[in-house]
């Protein structure tokens, strides 16, 4: 409850973690607000069906609020004039404002429990934050947005926030590195998917570092770091200790 989880990937694609968390929280009966900036609804739907959850059904019964960034952007740029009562969540694209307030309002409104809602704690899931920088949002605006979301979702609504970011060692994208580093300091849990340092391998797709930031809550505690390797399959991801992939044993 009230936790901020950061999903981070380096040299590989960490989106399998997003799919996992999405189906996990939906199965657990939480109300989920999913800000999907990079892929379309049907992509997530098809993968979620393989994992045993139907996103369309979840949307129907009001458990899932899905913001399809690509579609929203097209509506903003190609659509008719927006109605005054319903500003587009991606308003910052048209340059009229430089902050992500509209996006935050969208999140807040979707996760505030309505009457008759029987869902468990709310969850905000974002895939992925680095896209906001590509679209022209300033790093400070992105950090402000996350801050507001944390206050609203984690503290006030006692829910969880899960965010995916990309990062690279010796990346030249300073804005992105700034955002990622800042988020790392404020996260309760970091799941860091990395490509293997030795290059591409068919049986081990990467390694995942799980960092439990105990030092955030308790002064004298050390962060707990665990490292596993993983292989992604069609419906599943298998995790195993380093060096013990099925191909080797």
């Amino acid at each position, binding site marked *: 409850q009230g936790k901020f989880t950061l999903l981070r990937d380096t*040299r*590989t*694609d960490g*989106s*399998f973690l997003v*799919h996992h968390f999405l189906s996990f929280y939906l199965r657990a009966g939480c109300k989920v607000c999913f800000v999907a900036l*990079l*892929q*379309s609804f*049907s*992509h997530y739907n*098809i*993968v979620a069906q*393989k994992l045993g959850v139907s996103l369309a059904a979840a949307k129907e019964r009001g458990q899932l609020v899905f913001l399809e960034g*690509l*579609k929203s*952007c*097209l509506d903003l*740029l*190609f659509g008719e004039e927006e109605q005054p009562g319903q500003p587009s969540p991606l308003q910052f*694209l*048209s*340059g*009229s404002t430089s902050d992500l307030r509209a996006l935050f309002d969208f999140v807040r409104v979707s996760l505030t429990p309505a009457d008759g809602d029987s869902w468990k704690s709310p969850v905000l899931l974002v895939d992925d934050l*680095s*896209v906001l*920088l*590509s*679209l*022209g949002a300033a790093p400070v605006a992105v950090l402000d947005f996350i801050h507001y979301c944390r206050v609203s979702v984690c503290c006030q609504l006692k829910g969880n926030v899960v965010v995916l970011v*990309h990062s*690279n060692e010796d*990346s*030249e*994208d*300073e*804005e*992105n590195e700034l955002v990622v580093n800042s988020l790392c300091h404020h996260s309760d849990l970091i799941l860091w998917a990395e*490509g*293997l*340092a*030795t*290059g*591409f*391998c*068919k049986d081990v*797709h*990467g390694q995942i570092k799980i960092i439990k930031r105990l030092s955030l809550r308790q002064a004298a505690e050390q962060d707990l770091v665990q490292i596993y390797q993983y292989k*992604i*399959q*069609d*419906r599943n*991801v298998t995790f195993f200790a380093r060096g013990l992939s099925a191909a080797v044993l």
Partner: protein
Amino acid sequence: LVFTEEDKYGLYSNLLFKYFLAEGIVCGHDLFVASAKEHPDNILKELPAPLLDDTYGKELGDEAAAVKSEDFQDSMKIAWRYQNLPKVEASPTTHTKFGHYYDISKKMPPELCQSVKRHSFYLHEESSFEPKTKTWNMNSGYARLLQSIQRIISQEGFDGSDPQKKQRNVLRIGIQSLGSVLWGDDVCCSDTPEDTHSLTKFLYVLRGLLRKSLAACIITVPAHLIQNKAIMERVTNLSDMVVGLESFIGSERETNPLYKDYHGLVHVHQIPRLNSLICDVSDTKDLAFRLKRKLFTIERLHLPPDLSDTVSRASKQDLAGSAKLLSSGCGAMAIGKKHLDF
């Protein structure tokens, strides 16, 4: 969204671009060609002629049906490869059902060219920007191109908006040399361009358009001119498939005896991971291309047999170094600075 990094002189990436368009014509897809460099009609006149044989007619029917049903399910883009990446054979010997072969020494016959609907966008002939979109905050050349694409998609019903249309078709979009100075973007000229976000915003909106319609798009970009690497990283994140072509012209590798059979290298930086947790990675990462008189092939990089006593240590190390760079994998799986070869 297939993003191609051009080689230095643009020769080979142009070829890939033309193959994409030619395949569209042969499959009966509609085409949309955009360029700021050459007039699209000129580009279309230069497409390679398809190699026909007896089974061609039947194949076209099968292929067109297969393509339509595939695209219909997902309404997503699929990256097209013309010369199949050989998984086992070194060069394609059997007639595969996917794709066609072309003879680049001949031009495509104009009747074939005329058989599909072609739309074009030549930047310097386009009318100026409509005022409604001044709130776009983007380079006006890109904005005009996006408007044009969106108009074609909705007018011709590629986004499924017209229920009357019985036969759905695919739209192939080719955009040449995006990001170059000719489009009005200075991202290729300076380290700190005036508007760092135009190109990435353009790609995001294009991605949105492609996702909701039956369209596939190839873009070539003179990536070697873009000095701001942060932009290249962002662009890679926004594309489905990223392929880089590195030609040996003018570089020291041209005379390297170990590369003598090839004209350049193909770097696959990213492959699409759509509708699935996994992506389709081929076994080999070392790909090179060569341009023969009639054919452009992409093959596994084979080192020629080391028969000579005088092959020096230096060139072997050099090749080993570049082989490491080659086999460093694609972004969707893993890229690493290699200490070991896998």
